């Protein structure tokens, strides 16, 4: 049973998060190990495993990047090893510019405005790339799946950048 079947929803990148969350709670309640306190040792073990599986499934499906990766892997797309270097020069040059832009926020006279600008650029590019990947996932042929996989790898660079932005925001305004 795959994660989508587990939650009784269609295997798609578009997931109704509210529905997913309520299904998750219902499933977790039914499989809660406390309910099996008086059951046989084997049933207890199965309940613990089931509960862990429901948890893994929920964590995977509720976030867009792990969800996309899960869909692509289920389709048999050959995901390059995470450690494998990425060498799209144009994309990487742009990533370096974005990181330089983020670095300059600290030196800006109005750090607040500079940070906001970076956040806007990042969120618009992230959204654009996500929409592209979403269309490629729903197209679902071998070329589009590979293109989606490529964009998923690109999105991971943005995810990392967003973590840096949050860190910087905390450092700048948390005092």
């Amino acid at each position, binding site marked *: 049973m795959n994660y989508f079947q587990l939650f009784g929803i269609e295997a798609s990148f578009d997931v109704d998060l509210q529905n997913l969350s309520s299904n998750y709670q219902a499933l977790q309640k039914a499989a809660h190990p406390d309910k099996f306190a008086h059951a046989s040792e084997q049933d207890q073990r199965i309940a613990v495993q089931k509960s862990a599986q429901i948890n893994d499934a929920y964590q995977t499906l509720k976030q867009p990047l792990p969800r996309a990766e899960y869909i692509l892997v289920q389709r048999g797309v050959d995901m390059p090893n*995470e*450690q494998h*270097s*990425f*060498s799209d*020069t144009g*994309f*990487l*040059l742009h*990533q*370096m510019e974005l*990181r330089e832009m983020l670095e300059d926020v600290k030196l800006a006279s109005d750090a607040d405005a500079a940070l906001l600008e970076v956040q806007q650029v990042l969120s618009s590019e992230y959204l654009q790339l996500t929409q592209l990947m979403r269309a490629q996932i729903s197209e679902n042929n071998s070329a589009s799946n590979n293109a989606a996989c490529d964009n998923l*790898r*690109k999105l*991971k*660079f943005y*995810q*990392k*950048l967003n*973590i840096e932005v949050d860190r910087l925001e905390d450092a700048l305004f948390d005092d």
Partner: protein
Amino acid sequence: MAYSEKVIDHYENPRNVGSMDKNDPTVATGMVGAPACGDVMRLQLKISADGIIEDAKFKTYGCGSAIASSSLVTEWVKGKSIEEAGKIKNTDIAEELALPPVKIHCSILAEDAIKAAIEDYKSKQGK
């Protein structure tokens, strides 16, 4: 996780940080990235007419091990021919810096950056 002394040294005093004009025909630029950790590395080599690396610069956004790996590589490649530089293996880098297994990919990234720079140089020369 504890970094080795060599990693800390390169991280605190990185060698050869900077950039060169990527449009200069004698400058080779290698750009590589690692989606797993979001690291981005740029290695630039200034190459003489007889194929010797005269200067090297890098800029890396990433963890201490990624910065140390690229910093070390700029020291190693200077004075080498591009053939010799192309033979530098990630295992040499990882060994020199005593990188733990989870950071081996940083040394792979540095090796790939050298290869990408050499590719860039060859394509520039071919033109």
